[in-house]
Structure formats: C-alpha cells, structure tokens
C-alpha cells in the first residue's frame, strides 16, 4: 500500500469512526416487562421530580420493575416527536394536555388508558376513576376515531383565578363584575391601582376576555370564535360585550401603570408587593411570587366574577389545565408503564404533589397546600372549562395577540379590535387551508 493509500484509508477510517460515534448516541430499550423508559417534563431538581423519584424508587423495590427515567424538561414533546417513527419510543411520558395534543393526540399516537381508570390504584379498593374528580377531564379533546378522552391520567390540576391579598382590608373577593368595578373605583379614589397585568403575556391578558365571554355568552362563544374557519364566531354579541368590559377597565385607569410595556413577570411581582389589588393568574402564582410578597401578604384566590346581571346569571366555570401521564401507542412496555401510573396515583404517593410540590391533585381526598385551599374548593364546586378553548400557540401569535393587545392597551376600540381580529383570522384560515 502506497503512502497515499494509507492516508486515504486513514481519512476514511476517521470519517467512519466519527459517523459511528454520532449514530451510536441512542440506546435501545428492552421489552421484557421488567423495565420501562420514562421521559419526564420536569428537570431533575424540581419538587415534582423529587416526588416522582421517590415513587420510582419504591416502585422498583415493590415490583422489581426498573424505571429508566430521563428528566427531559418542558420540551419533552419536541424530543418525543422524532422517536415516534422509530422503535425507541419511551414507554411513559408526562406533560400538560395542550402540549401533548399535537404530538401524541392529534395523530392518535397515545394509548387509551381506560384500563388504568377502571383498575384500583395500587393498594387501594375500587376503580381509580372513583377516587378522582373525573369531570376535570371533560374539556379534553378526544383521540381521533372515537378513542375517547382517557388518553391521559392527570396527577396535577392548575386553574386560573383572581388573586388578592386577604390581609388587605380594602379588597374583597368580587362576586359579580360590578363588585369588581366597585372595588376598583374605591381603590382609585385612594390613588391605588386595582389590577396588575403583564401585557407581554398574550394568554394571561387574554383570560380577561375569555372569562368574560364565557360569563356573558357561555363556553361555546370563544370556542366558536377561535375555531370557526369563517371567522363569523367573532360576530357574537357576547364577544363584543366582553371586549367593551375589558376596554372599560383600561379606560377607567384601573390597571397598574406599565401593563402595556412590561416584561413578564414584572407586573405580577408588583402585585405581590401590594402595588395592585388583583392579578388574574394561574394557580402557580403564589409559588412564583413568594419571594416578592410583602410582609403579612395573605394569598387568596377568588373565582372570576361569576355573574353579569341579566346575562347568563350564575355561570361560574373555572379554567383548568391538567398535567399528567400518557403512554405512546408503540410503547414496548405499556403494561409496566400503566402499572407505574396506578402505583403513583395511590393517595399516599400522589400526596407528595400537594404536600411537597405545592400543587392541587385531581384527588379530592388529598388536601391542597394552604395557599391553594380556596382554589381546590372552587375547582371541586364548579364545572371545568378550557382556557381560550381550541386555541394553539400559532393562533395566539398570529391572530389573537396582534389584535387583542391593541384593545387591552387602549389603542383600539372594541369595534376596531373585532375588525382587526376578523381580518387576521381570515388570513390565518386562508394560509392554513
């Protein structure tokens, strides 16, 4: 072999070696029923991960099934997508229902978990479904081809509420929209802001319109507006009335200054400092703002004002978002994965999600952490609905936010807002046909 030949060979060998090391990154999983692969939405040092970790340890001890867990973080679905066409799909994943939808549900790649609901949780009597508040799942979208809604076993429930400081004597939970306006007017007289909002959070400010439209015209109003391709849903008078009410808050100066130029989470932190009375936010708010809370702050949650006189009376549904497990259809160890779900959903293990991770669980028999007591009561006594029903990130980016922020920032009248959102909606529908 000449020198050149040797060099050529060496180059080729190097190239092959590099390629081989690139290709060799993945690792296969067995299918002996003695192990399962779990990809989690949590990162390793989050409280939820700690709770899951200790459950996994006990699970392996009790059943002999090894759990190979990878803490993938919030992008777990993006990482899952490419594995769905290979044999290397994990056996168990978790995320919120809306994040799981495009990857697992829309194309029918999740397993129907009815069996888990029908069986008792490990060490308990009676089916799991009898231990959970099953109506939380009413808003979930169905698997295609009549697969039903039981593609997810939720272990954490979040909701959207009106938050305030129970220790603040001049603030009380508003029962009706007019109560809220009254409280705001009283505060305004004392030169205090009523509501804080981070204007750069499309969905957070969107909840005002969404909840109002629900209270005025029912859950179907926003769903039709968002999902009806023709855009006619935005013509519903309930949407216009809701928009007028949102604009009223802005025009009367009830919003804490800076709402239209803030960088999240500035304004919600100002709320915790007591600069504004109310913040419409998720049940994660107390945890997020804990270190900014002023001394003696008594975090309380009120339902979104539940009645608009003359319109819809006592509509009082609560926005809910579920976090839970799903099992991909091609999972090789689906049985082991289901076994783990049943194991984790037992009261004594799921309790960690409330007591250690500070969240509400779907089991009424597990006590909520103290700051979320109100929320749990509210969740269990009202129907559940999906926030901004039917919307996806792309729609919020391209249709809802560009139009709605002009209304919320006081730059557009309700009519101008509706005209713009209809125009953007039509363009969006056309580009997506």
């Amino acid at each position, binding site marked *: 072999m000449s020198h*050149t030949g040797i060099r050529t060979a060496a180059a080729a060998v190097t190239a092959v070696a590099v390629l081989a090391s690139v290709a060799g990154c993945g690792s296969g999983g067995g299918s002996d029923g003695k192990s399962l692969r779990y990809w989690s939405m949590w990162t390793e040092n989050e409280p939820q991960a700690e709770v899951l970790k200790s459950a996994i340890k006990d699970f392996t001890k009790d059943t002999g099934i090894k759990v190979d867990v990878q803490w993938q973080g919030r992008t777990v679905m993006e990482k899952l997508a490419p594995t769905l066409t290979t044999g290397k799909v994990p056996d168990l994943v978790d995320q919120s229902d809306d994040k799981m939808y495009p990857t697992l549900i829309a*194309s029918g790649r999740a397993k129907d978990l009815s069996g888990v609901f029908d069986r008792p949780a490990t060490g308990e009597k009676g089916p799991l479904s009898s231990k959970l508040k099953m109506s939380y799942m009413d808003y979930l979208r169905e698997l295609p081809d009549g697969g039903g809604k039981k593609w997810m076993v939720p272990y954490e429930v979040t909701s959207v509420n009106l938050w305030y400081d129970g220790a603040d004597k001049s603030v009380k939970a508003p029962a009706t929209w007019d109560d809220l306006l009254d409280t705001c007017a009283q505060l305004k007289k004392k030169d205090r802001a009523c509501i804080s909002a981070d204007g750069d959070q499309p969905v957070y400010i969107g909840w005002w319109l969404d909840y109002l439209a629900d209270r005025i015209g029912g859950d179907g109003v926003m769903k039709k507006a968002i999902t009806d391709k023709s855009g006619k849903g935005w013509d519903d008078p309930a949407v216009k009335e809701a928009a007028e009410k949102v604009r009223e808050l802005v025009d009367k100066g009830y919003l804490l200054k*800076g709402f239209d130029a803030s*960088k999240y989470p*500035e304004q919600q932190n100002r709320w915790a400092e007591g600069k504004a009375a109310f913040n419409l936010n998720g049940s994660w708010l107390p945890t997020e703002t804990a270190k900014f809370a002023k001394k003696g702050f008594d975090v309380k949650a009120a339902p979104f004002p539940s009645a608009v006189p003359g319109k819809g009376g006592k509509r009082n549904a609560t926005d809910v978002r579920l976090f839970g497990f799903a099992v991909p259809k091609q999972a090789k160890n689906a049985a082991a994965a289901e076994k783990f779900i049943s194991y984790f959903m037992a009261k004594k293990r799921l309790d960690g999600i409330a007591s250690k991770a500070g969240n509400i669980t779907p089991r009424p028999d597990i006590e909520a952490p103290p700051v979320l007591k109100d929320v749990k009561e509210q969740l269990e006594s009202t129907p559940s609905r999906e926030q901004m029903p039917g919307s996806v*990130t*792309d*729609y*919020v980016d391209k249709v809802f936010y560009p139009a709605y922020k002009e209304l919320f920032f006081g730059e557009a009248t309700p009519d101008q807002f509706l005209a713009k959102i209809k125009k953007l909606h039509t363009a969006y529908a056309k580009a997506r046909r």
Partner: protein
Amino acid sequence: MAVLTAGRREGGGPPALSRNRETPLAIKRRRLFWPFVAPSLAFLALFYIGPLLFGIWTSFHRWDGFSAMEWNGLGSYRALIDDPFFRTSMLNTFKILVFVGLAVFVLAFALTMVLREMAGKKFVRAVIFFPHIVNAMVFGVLAGFLFNPGGLVNSALSAMGVQDPPKWLGSDNIFPLIMATMVCTSTGFYVAIIMAAVDNIPTYLYEDAELAGAGAFRKFWHITLPLSWDVVTVCAVLWTISSVKVFELVLVFGGTFTTNGPPIETWTSALYIYRNAFAGSDIPQFGVVCAAGITSLVLVAVFTVVLRRLMRRDPVEY
C-alpha cells in the same frame, strides 16, 4: 490553495503539461487532493447539502415531522404569501440588513476616521470591539432590566423629573430598540476590520491631500474609501450573512423566553421559522417552515449577488 491549483491542473491544465513532465512535488500534491478534500466534502454533503435538498423536498409536502409526507405542490409557498406575518418577518430582516447595516458602516467609518489619528487608539478599539464578544442574549436580557416600567432607565428619568416616560418595551418600540442594540454591538467588529485596512494606506497620500487643501471629508472620499473598498465589500457580505441569522437577540428581547415568544411584529425570518416549527402547542407544519427557509435563502442570495455586482470596482493599486 496550492492543493486546489494542483487539482485543477489535472483536469483542465494545458495539454503540454503531460503527466510525465510533472514535478514529483506536483504529483504528490495531485495525489493528496482527494484525501484532503473528501472528508470535508463528505461533511458538507452530509450536513449542509443533504439537509438543504431535503428542505426543498419537504417544502413541497405537508409534514408534521413524524407522519407520512403528503404531496402539497406549491401549497406551502401560497400559504406564505397569504400569511401577512411572513411578510412582516422578511421586512424586518431587510430592515436590519439595510438600515442597521448603513448605520453600522457610517459609524464604523466615522470612528475609524477619529481613531486613526487618536492617541491610545488600540485601547479604544478594543473597548468598542468588546460588545461583539458578548453573546447577544446578554443584551436582550439586559434590555429588560434597563427598559422595564420600573427599570433603571425609567428610574433615572423620574429622578430627573420625567413623569410619563416612553413605553420602551411597548410592542411598537421594541423593534427600533432591537435595531439600536444591534448597531451598538456590531459597530466595533467592523471598526476593527476597516481600521486594519485603513492602517495599510500610506500616510503620504493623506499628507499630499492635506497640502492640496483637502478637508476631512475629501480625504475620506478620495483616499480612504477607494483604497479600502475591497475590505468594505467583504464586510458588506459578512454583514448580510450575519443579519439574516439574527435570532437570539430578538427571541429574548421582545418577551420572556420561558412562556411566550416575542411579539410577532418583531419577528425576523429566522424567528418565523423557529416559532412555526417549535412553538409548542401546535402541530408543526414543516412544509411551510421549509418553504419559509428556502424563500429567505433565495432572497438573501439574490440580495448578496446584486450587492456584489453594485460594489464591484477595479482594485486600486498602491
């Protein structure tokens, strides 16, 4: 380069130069051509050309990333035409390319002129170059601290008695702020390159011009600019390429990364592609995403070629 030359000679060299008459060195060089070039070529094909072709192929299909591809013809390109925000994103990219580019070059030349005769110019050059080393994300995050309603800038303004400061991070103001940030962070890099070229211009030319009564602008127009033109041309291409890739600054500047992206009015073409492909709760439309990528690639390629044409001059020998 030597290797390349040897390789070319093999194919299209003059016929008189037959193999037998090649020097031993040339023969060795010729033999080494493929062993040296092949690995890079393989990588280029595998990681650039292959994906590019795949991207073109995908742009003619509907594809969510894992189901079977479905032929869509020019549907994705039509969807882009129908999407008003694709135009906004492309327009933003071109705004950065042209307006920020012009500002950067005007400033870079102005600074070069000032620095040329300044004491301690190396130190000053290092200082203005420094922002280029720092990751653009840092400036994006910093902007939040500076321009929030309760941030440093407004605190300073209210201390000076300004009661109603501008809405810095209001969605109309974010993009101009982003462009201003880019001017500040990019200028130093081009000052460094242009200064290197200007330093090579013999001083006697400037002395001569001064004797002839030329002012600062005349000296710039008749000496500096023509004699550094080659470098400016290269800089212009570098700028074009880097401005198309602007991404992380916009991503963290406009909003908060963890929950939502920046407002759509600030998207550049790179962000449009990212948000459409990996935005979270939506079924990815990789066909449209690839079409957007290919479209912006073509537009930028055309722009670069036109720019090179327009800037072509005969080199000045000195």
